[in-house]
């Protein structure tokens, strides 16, 4: 009896062991991700972790096409903007249903966005700052009345998947509870997207299955099931991709890619995002209050060598706006590595004998350490002593928020909220946005820059607007408030049988699941 039990157990283990490392089923796409959301509520989530799930299950009125730089219809088929920019009227797609069977219409748009604005957390500012009211004109027409107008980038704001995902009005009303549905939407998704959430085992995986009632239909090549597996350890993630247990591995660090180089069946993908990496200089106190010292430091930075920190996968940033985004201009002047000029500028500013400065980098953004150490070596040659300090995200925010504790130099990243140059330039360089109000870490307060940025938000003519932005970027370069390093690349590695994936720098952590299939 005992022997028989032992045999059964061994057989059971054997069977499971074999199936545990088999490759993924043909109709299922298994994606490994490092980050997991802590709430799926589109009114609250404001993290990169939500990219894949929101794109699988939710939809927005409009989307941004990176290739053309244009706004395209999604749940809105077309739109009219009043001449003064006060009213945006959207004509909605008909015959769309939510995963719970509720119909998508103008009232649904109003219910979803009113909820986001009433909860007023995380991404809500993108609506509350600009929208005065949302009105149902008829079943298929919804009108947004703007608070401040004209505000040219508004359609691009609506294309963000933070705060702009439209949840089912039935689900919102029925599960409101006493917290406006925050408890329900924490772990439920009820959208109109192609895939519906069927299971979330927290800390492990989310499973999505195709939504048969999807308005886009299911002809052509698609997968039926999507599994998002959370894998915190990226070494393990690489092993799983290599063995075929994952179809896509998102976020393997650049310096770990070598382990996948030349592995059969694995395609390595590295893409530049719209997230930029910079070093903010404290323009308000200490030696860096002098623009000559800031310019000296800009010349002392070895831009080409710094790219080695990114394993050579990217190029130095030109201007402030990453390549691929409207407003990026390759013809802008930029600093080059020249220690003689740097030395001379330091001498002019009275620092011929050198000076010492503190540089901070954020634990979660490890490129900052290597950039700092590299720079420390270079700076020594011109008598600048750089103290490299590590800070946590929380510590970083604490230090930069207070003018007294702000380090001389702070390495940081900025990811955009919506695919428009104003989402880079306004929060980072407008004088009104010094911390804690915004992310202008260098506390630059240049009235000319402020005026141009204010004007560019109101300029409906795209060509004129781009001219204004180019002007702002030139001013910023002269002011040398930051050292602009590069656009931060991400890695999306996949099995070679995965087809149809298109990288989108504006929503880099998401996937166009509906178009992805396996050969």
């Amino acid at each position, binding site marked *: 009896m005992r022997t028989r039990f032992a045999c059964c157990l061994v057989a059971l*283990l054997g069977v*499971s062991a074999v199936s545990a*490392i088999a490759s993924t089923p043909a109709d299922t796409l*298994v994606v490994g991700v490092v980050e997991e959301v802590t709430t799926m509520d589109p009114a609250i989530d*404001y993290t990169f972790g939500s990219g894949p799930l929101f794109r699988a299950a939710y939809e927005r009125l409009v989307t941004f096409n990176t290739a053309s730089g244009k706004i395209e219809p999604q749940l809105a088929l077309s739109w009219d903007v009043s001449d003064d920019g006060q009213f945006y009227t959207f004509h909605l797609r008909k015959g769309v249903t939510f995963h719970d069977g509720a119909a998508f219409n103008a009232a649904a748009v109003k219910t979803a966005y009113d909820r986001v604005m009433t909860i007023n957390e995380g991404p809500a500012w993108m609506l509350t700052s600009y929208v005065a009211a949302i009105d149902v004109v008829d079943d298929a027409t919804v009108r947004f009345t703007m608070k401040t107008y004209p505000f040219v980038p508004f359609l691009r704001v609506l294309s963000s998947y933070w705060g702009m995902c439209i949840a089912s009005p039935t689900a919102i009303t029925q599960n409101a509870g006493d917290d406006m549905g925050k*408890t329900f939407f*924490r772990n439920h998704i009820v959208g109109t997207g192609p895939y519906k959430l069927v299971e979330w085992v927290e800390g492990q995986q989310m499973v999505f299955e195709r939504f048969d009632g999807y308005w886009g239909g299911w002809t052509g090549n698609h997968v039926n099931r999507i599994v998002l597996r959370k894998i915190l350890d990226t070494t393990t993630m690489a092993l799983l991709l290599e063995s075929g247990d994952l179809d896509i591995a998102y976020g393997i660090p650049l310096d770990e890619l070598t382990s996948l180089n030349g592995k059969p069946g694995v395609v390595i993908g590295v893409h530049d995002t719209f997230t930029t990496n910079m070093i903010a200089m404290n323009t308000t106190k200490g030696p860096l209050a002098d623009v000559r010292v800031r310019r000296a430091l800009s010349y002392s930075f070895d831009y080409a060598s710094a790219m080695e920190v990114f394993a050579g996968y990217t190029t130095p940033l030109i201007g402030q706006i990453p390549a691929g985004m409207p407003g990026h201009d390759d013809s802008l002047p930029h600093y080059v590595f020249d220690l003689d000029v740097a030395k001379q500028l330091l001498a002019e500013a009275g620092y011929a004998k050198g000076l010492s400065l503190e540089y901070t980098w954020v*634990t979660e953004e490890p490129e900052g350490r290597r950039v700092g150490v590299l720079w420390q070596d270079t700076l020594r040659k011109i008598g600048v002593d750089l103290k490299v300090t590590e*800070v946590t995200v*929380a510590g970083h925010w604490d230090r930069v928020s207070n003018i007294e504790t702000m380090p001389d130099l702070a390495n940081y990243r900025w990811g955009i909220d919506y695919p428009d140059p104003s989402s880079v330039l306004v929060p980072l360089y407008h004088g009104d946005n010094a911390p804690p109000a915004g992310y202008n870490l260098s506390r630059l307060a240049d009235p000319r820059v402020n005026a141009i940025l204010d004007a560019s938000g109101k300029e409906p003519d795209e060509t004129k607007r781009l001219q204004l932005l180019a002007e702002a970027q030139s001013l910023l370069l002269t002011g040398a408030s930051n050292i602009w390093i590069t656009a931060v690349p991400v890695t999306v590695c996949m099995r070679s049988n995965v087809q149809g994936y298109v990288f989108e720098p504006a929503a880099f952590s998401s996937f166009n699941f509906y178009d992805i299939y396996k050969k």
Partner: protein
Amino acid sequence: MLDRQVMVRYIVKRLALLTITLLGVLTLTFFVSHVVPGDPARLAAGVRARPEQVEALRTRLGLDRPLWQQYGHYIAGVVRGDLGESIRTRRPVSADLAEYFPATVELTAFAMILCLLIGIPLGIVSAVKRESVIDHVSRVASTAAVSMPTFWLGLLLQLLFFRWLQILPATGRLGFYLSPPAHATGLYVLDSLFSGNWTALGDSLVHLILPATALAASSMAVITRMTRSSLLEILSLDYVRTARSKGLAEKVVILKHALRNALLPSLTVIGLQVGVLLAGAVLIEVVFSWPGIGLYAVQSITFVDFQAILGVTLITAIVYSGVNLIVDVLYGVIDPRIHY
């Protein structure tokens, strides 16, 4: 009868002391975690949140009140069984712990079973067959296991069994093609047994092998060495010689007479190893993407999520103190000479 009353009184006294210990641990953790730099309201609201959003959240979370008030409020909550709300996961810490703790219990229990099933017999054999090949091999293996960092061993095991031999899975509690068994205890092995879900049972056992082995290794080594040395000491005592000279079978001498006494020091070590296993689980859970409280703790710490950190501290302290209490009580069971 009297003995039992004495025992009960002893346990009650220890439980009272435990409360004081827990209060101390919570107080210390509370104030230490509040010294760490970082504004939890800002992190919870997101770095892009507007200042007024941050302030609204700060008020809602009670973070605008003086520290001693926050402390009083927290302790009062704990007494009522309310561990507060996690600012990261946005739900009660007790709900988070209920979700993540069973995974850690399963992992550490499995590791402990491995420790006992392998560590003690190996220690006995090493002592009885002193200076034999087994003894030497076990000494070398123990030294290696103790000196190798847990996470490193975990990675090596993954490389060997997952990557090269391809016989064991590397991460998670179940394969992605399986749903967890019907929830009863949160321990997948037990839940799948209860619900008769044999596929899930096999798969969850298979997923336990590597993380549990990596986690158990160093504790197993300590237990082996401890059992070996205390058994050797006992075997040289007069009463063992007497037993042998009575003509008792060697098996009886060792297992009935010597082992019982030799296990006492091992028992203390085993109790302490529970703490070691819980601490090691933090690293192992990260390496194996094992969704337990270790992983939860790591994420909470980077988020300055005070309530979550305190919750993990509390539950770990309770388990650790509880196990040590059980060990002390077991002393009396194994050795009738010990009184309380």
